[in-house]
């Protein structure tokens, strides 16, 4: 697996984040997240083939099980159980969102961030792309009103950061990866529980309906 293939995968990941911004159906959003996690798993698989480090293989399996299979299954089950097919509400309308996406992408490729993206100069394009993926995930969290979309935003933020780290050549630290997997697994569990609680009490996943707490 050479660099071109990895860059291709990163491009697909970038497209999934844009898709998450534009998609209206929660089911497709969960599938997009699953695809993202699959790409991350492929990154680690490639790292395993290069270094033959068994812990990385363990990480590959954990990513596969937790992020690619279990988490989207959780979400899909929640969607089916509560008939949450659509998540149309955003704070900004779609064209404005897309314009901001474009601006964020340009900012990430801007000169100011060149020290960041020059960590491994050969990978500069990929690092810029990963950085713009990070910005876009942050936008997703801020922009969306649905609790499920916010969770997907946080999870895709984590995926983007891991992608950035991988392309910066820092993925060799295995304890780090296992820690992240563990964390994200527990996080997904707790976030799903919270979503059920929100649904039970508010009747909707629209977080703008949660406005009881004011000064």
């Amino acid at each position, binding site marked *: 697996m050479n660099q071109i293939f990895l860059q*291709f995968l990163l*491009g697909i990941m*970038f497209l999934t984040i*844009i898709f998450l911004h534009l998609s209206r159906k929660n089911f497709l959003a969960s599938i997009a997240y699953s695809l993202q996690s699959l790409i991350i798993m492929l990154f680690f698989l490639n790292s395993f083939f290069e270094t033959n480090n068994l812990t990385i293989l363990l990480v590959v399996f954990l990513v596969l099980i937790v992020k690619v299979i279990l988490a989207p299954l959780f979400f899909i089950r929640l969607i089916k159980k509560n008939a949450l097919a659509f998540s149309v509400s955003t704070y900004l309308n779609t064209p404005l969102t*897309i314009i901001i996406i474009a601006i964020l992408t340009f900012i990430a490729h801007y000169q100011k961030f060149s020290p960041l993206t020059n960590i491994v100069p050969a990978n500069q394009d990929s690092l810029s792309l990963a950085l713009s993926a990070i910005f876009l995930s942050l936008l997703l969290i801020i922009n969306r009103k649905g609790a499920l979309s916010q969770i997907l935003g946080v999870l895709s933020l984590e995926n983007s950061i891991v992608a950035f780290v991988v392309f910066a050549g820092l993925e060799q630290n295995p304890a780090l990866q296992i820690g992240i997997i563990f964390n994200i697994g527990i996080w997904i569990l707790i976030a799903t529980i919270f979503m059920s609680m929100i649904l039970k009490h508010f009747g909707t996943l629209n977080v703008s309906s949660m406005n009881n707490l004011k000064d």
Partner: protein
Amino acid sequence: MIIIIWAIQIILTPLVSPLCVGVINKIKARLQNRKGASIFQPYRDLWKLLHKDEIISRDASWIFRVAPLIVFSITLVIGTSIPFFTSFLTNTLTGDMLLIVYALAIGTFFLALGGLDVGSAFGGFGSSREMTLSALAEGGFIFSFLTVALINGTTNIFTIVNADIFVHGRYLLPTLLAFGGFLVVLLAETARFPFDNPATHLELTMIHEAMILEYSGKKLALMEWATFNKLFIFLALSVNLFFPIGLAHTAGIITISAGIIIFMIKIFLGVLFITLLESSMAKFRFFRLPDLLLISFILNAIAIGLIR
């Protein structure tokens, strides 16, 4: 040999485009559990129309008579100017992408004028809607071409499709984004879902159909054929410009035949995509269409921004 290739290139567009539309209708019918008309039905429709009488309104001017000819001939000219299955037929006269965009715009212009010419209300609003969408789609259209042009450093289409696939492989992400933007423009310009329903009978939902409502007989045949040609042209552009694989680089029987076959397969994939899209979504209401076109424009802008 070259003469044969040129001959094929010239007649390919008007010959094959009704077949494309026939295939679309057939697959849609199958998906709707109907038997559907035969895939050669559009040919029969054109034949029938060519042999029918025409009725022209008293208020029609020369524009009404001339518009179908202009629109049809423009599609023919463009049909010869874009690469279908070869990449070595350089045509510096009409092979430039900007020329293609604006030639198509001339076609649209006369189409809209023709709709306005007889003074009917439906023609009028069809033309106004069409011009709105055209104006907004132009941004996405130009920018998606611009992306490919920037990657390859030229606006000559034949040079672009001659380029090494590796070039496109390196710029995969911008190409994909530009392709996505171009698909939206394709749907807009060829009056397909979600922009327009080509099979609608309700005048209030028409955009393209409203403009050709007053035509009959031979002129209607030319207009319909021109629409088919436009669809074919756009499909060919989308599959060849962004994924220039399988084009014959040399003139030999085997390469040409392989080129034609691969091209047909690619066109079929495009047709399949349109069919599945049409079967799975509803037409958007008109006020949502500018948003969609703006999205296409920005996607292309992002694609340009990602080019290094």
